[in-house]
């Protein structure tokens, strides 16, 4: 009983994170924030869904942990590479951006950077 409760709540948390990812993609103003929202959410969402399913069905637990390990290995790298590519190609930043640590962006206050 407890096992099922934990499992289902983990799956539910994962689903919620996916929902957040979708919301972020729609609501966030520029590519950096969009990617930030979606990667964080998909990584965490995948973790908890896989773990939840693993707890619900113990024979799947080993595979679930392996899955989590691979996602942890690849997903952040992919996001970082994508963001770097966007930055190098001078994708426009939203107006609210304050800090540009790399300092190559023309206008710290944002606006449409060409």
């Amino acid at each position, binding site marked *: 009983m407890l096992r099922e409760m934990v499992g289902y709540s983990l799956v539910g948390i994962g689903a919620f994170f996916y929902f957040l990812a979708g919301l972020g993609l729609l609501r966030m103003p520029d590519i950096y924030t969009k990617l930030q929202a979606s990667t964080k959410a998909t990584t965490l969402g995948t973790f908890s869904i896989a773990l939840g399913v693993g707890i619900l069905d113990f024979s799947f637990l080993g595979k679930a942990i392996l899955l989590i390990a691979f996602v942890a*290995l*690849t997903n952040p790298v992919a996001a*970082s*590479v994508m963001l*770097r590519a966007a930055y*190098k190609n001078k994708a426009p930043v939203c107006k609210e951006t304050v800090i540009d640590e790399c300092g190559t962006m023309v206008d710290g206050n944002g606006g449409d950077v060409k």
Partner: protein
Amino acid sequence: MRRVWAILVAGVFLYFLVGQFLPIIPTFGNVDLFARVAFDIINKSTTTNYNAVEFKKSKDLEDGSANVVTSIVVNYRSFDTLGEVSVLFCAAIGVGILASMLKSKKRIEFEEHKVLRISTGIVLPLILLFGAYIFIHGHLSPGGGFPGGTTIALGVLLLMLSNNEFKVTNVAKYVEQSAGAGYVVIGLMGMAIGGVFLMNFLPTGVVGNLFSAGVVPIVYTFIGFKVGAELSNVISDLREG
């Protein structure tokens, strides 16, 4: 004007499909398997009498692969697959020829990304291992030579994206050559042993074991190597220009 034409052409075509073609095909799900050759192929009884096949029990059937799609692709209709390999082969050669004809012979260069490079070192062996797993287990689980080879080529692509100096050497071409010729040679061996081209001349073993299905795993391994080398060449041709 173009749009009107397009709607007209697509409309006529859809009308033909829905009005003429749909009535003559069976409704979704209502397939009479008994009337199709697939029924005997599933039961592995095209030359022998009908016996139900059981996983890990049936022995020495005419075809030993647990994955029925594989047994069609590499055994019953192996000749198609030989053609399929040739299509990919020709496409790869074509990309090579056309890429070498480009006037701007500029190699695509970029700054390396440290995070990517380090994580590639960790992930790449896993990717290659996974690709090899896919084509070695092609007769037991979903997969086979084409997906496995593609996975390996993706590993090469990752290496190429993370490492600026990396080049696909001539070794890929030799791999492609020997794997491609190996497939045909297996076919010719069937001709020498059984008198028929592309015959499955090895014992088929127990359904579901790794060492089963005769020449199927061997052929899929060849295909895996060939497709991997070929697609790596395509990627490298497109990059080197």
